[in-house]
Every structure is written in structure tokens, then in C-alpha cells.
């Protein structure tokens, strides 16, 4: 199963990754990180195909994808 690593403290809650995921698996959570931003969360890890498009889109490289 592909693995998606989220570096929460790097996330700025911009939500661009949510636009990029072809499966609409990502959304902004209610969790605030140290920088004061609401971070992203992966709704259904099992559905993630590890395509990496979310990571490609993230301006802050808060996502790493392994497959």
C-alpha cells in the first residue's frame, strides 16, 4: 500500500493539495500546528493510490509519498 507522509509542521493549510488529489482524498482538518495553521488530513488512506500529485502541488513540501 502506498504511503503518504505528512510533515504537519510544514503544512500551511493552503489546501492546494486538496485541489490536486484526483480522488479528493485530502481535506483541511481542525488540527492547528505549531505555526498556527489548520493542517491537512488524508480522509481514507486506503484509497490513496500513491500517485504523488498532492505532493507535487504542495508549495511547502509538507507531503512525501512512497510506493
Amino acid at each position, binding site marked *: 500500500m*502506498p*504511503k503518504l507522509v505528512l510533515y504537519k*509542521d*510544514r503544512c*500551511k*493549510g*493552503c*489546501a*492546494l493539495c*486538496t*485541489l*490536486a488529489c484526483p480522488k479528493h482524498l485530502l481535506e483541511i482538518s481542525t488540527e492547528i500546528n505549531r*505555526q498556527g*495553521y489548520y493542517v491537512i488530513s488524508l480522509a481514507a488512506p486506503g484509497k490513496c493510490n*500513491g*500517485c*504523488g*500529485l498532492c*505532493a*507535487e*502541488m*504542495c*508549495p*511547502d*513540501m509538507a*507531503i*512525501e*509519498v*512512497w*510506493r
Partner: protein
Amino acid sequence: MKPVFKRPKSLYDVPFHYCPGCHHGIAHRLIAEAIDALGIQERVVAVASIGCSVFLYDYFAVDVLEAPHGRAPAVGTGIKRARPESIVFTYQGDGDLAAIGLAETIHAANRGEQLAVFFINNTIYGMTGGQMAPTTLPGQKTTTTPLGRRVIGEGAPLKMAEMIAALKPPAFVARVAVNNSKSIFQAKKAVQQAFRIQVEGKGYAFVEFLSACPTNWKMTPCEANRHVSEALIPEFPLGIFKGDL
């Protein structure tokens, strides 16, 4: 397991200072990836220009020189001529490259200097807080065009990629966007090509990024991202204007 996406090694593992949703971060990464891909990290000398991206040296694990505002192409010329074995790129905003630095931009291109020039066109002065740039869209409100930019009197958006492609010497000129996966993929290729040309000694390369500045556009990151396709691309068409991928 293999990484599908991992931070390029030419970037230090530190957070960017950019605003949420700012495309500078994506452009940085694409450049770093290309440096990694071509294995040129040890040869690169980058030129930081004055704008939100002035802190380039905090992010890129390559040698960096901070140029006076607008003068990056001239500074880059000096580096490359004095040390031809270096791979030199400049990274410049629209204020820097197309306003104060326009003469330096065009002349370096017209001499066919062996440089990769990365141009971040976000239609605004980011660092100084949202004033009009030479690429500001007609009607766009900025702190110095409170009623929206008028073409006559305040200027038409300068089409830098086209202007540079019209010169004889440049080897490669492209305009890209990074507001969705597809355009990022194209952008990645253009950036690599810009470096490859220099590695092969083929001359001057110019890549214009259409880039979002949510903060000074006064939009959310997602709105700003959409604005790139809805407003910027129609004004600044994407494509390869000179050379090929």
C-alpha cells in the same frame, strides 16, 4: 518502497517563509529537482534577486549571490563569464526583472549569455506589499492602482517571454504555470531544459512562471490558484516560444 515524491536534495530541509499557497515554493522545488536530476548541484551558482525570494540562500544548498534589485542578469553574466564551468541561474520577480531590471534582462538575453533565467510573474510586487508590477493585469487593483490598472498611462502587461523570444540569441524561452498537476509537469520539463541547455553550452534560457500571490491578490490560496487559470493564462499564454523541450 520507493519514494514517489521526496524533497530534492538541493533544498535544505527547512520551512519556507512564503505565505500559504504562494507558488514561489513550487518553483523553488522544480528548480531544485532539475539541479538534482542533472547532477549539477556542485557547479551551480545562483543569483538571488530582491523580492519575496531574496532569501534563496536559506533554501537552496548551492552557492548564492544576492544581487542589487533588477541587476541579477548582469550579476549572473559576471559570474558565468568569470567562471564558465559554473551553472548559473537567476531567480527574479516581475518587479525585479521587468521594471527596474528590464534593460539588464533584455541585454543579457540579447548577448546570449549562458544563463538560466527563472522569472516569477505574479503580476504584483509581493515583498513590498502589493504595488503594481509591469505584468499587472488591466483593471487589476493594487495599492498603487487603487482603481485598477489602466493600460494607457499605467501600461499594458509586459509579455516578457514573447519579448525575449523575439531576440535572436536566446536558445530557449517558455512560459509555464504551476497551478495544477498538468502544468507543473510541463513546468518541470521546461526548467530541466533550461539547465540542460546551459550544461551543453547552448546559451540563454528563459522560463516564465505564472505564479500566485494570494496575500497581495487578497484571495485565499485556492482562489488565487484558480485566478491563475482564469485571469493570468488568458493574458499570458503558456507555451514554448523558442527552442523545444
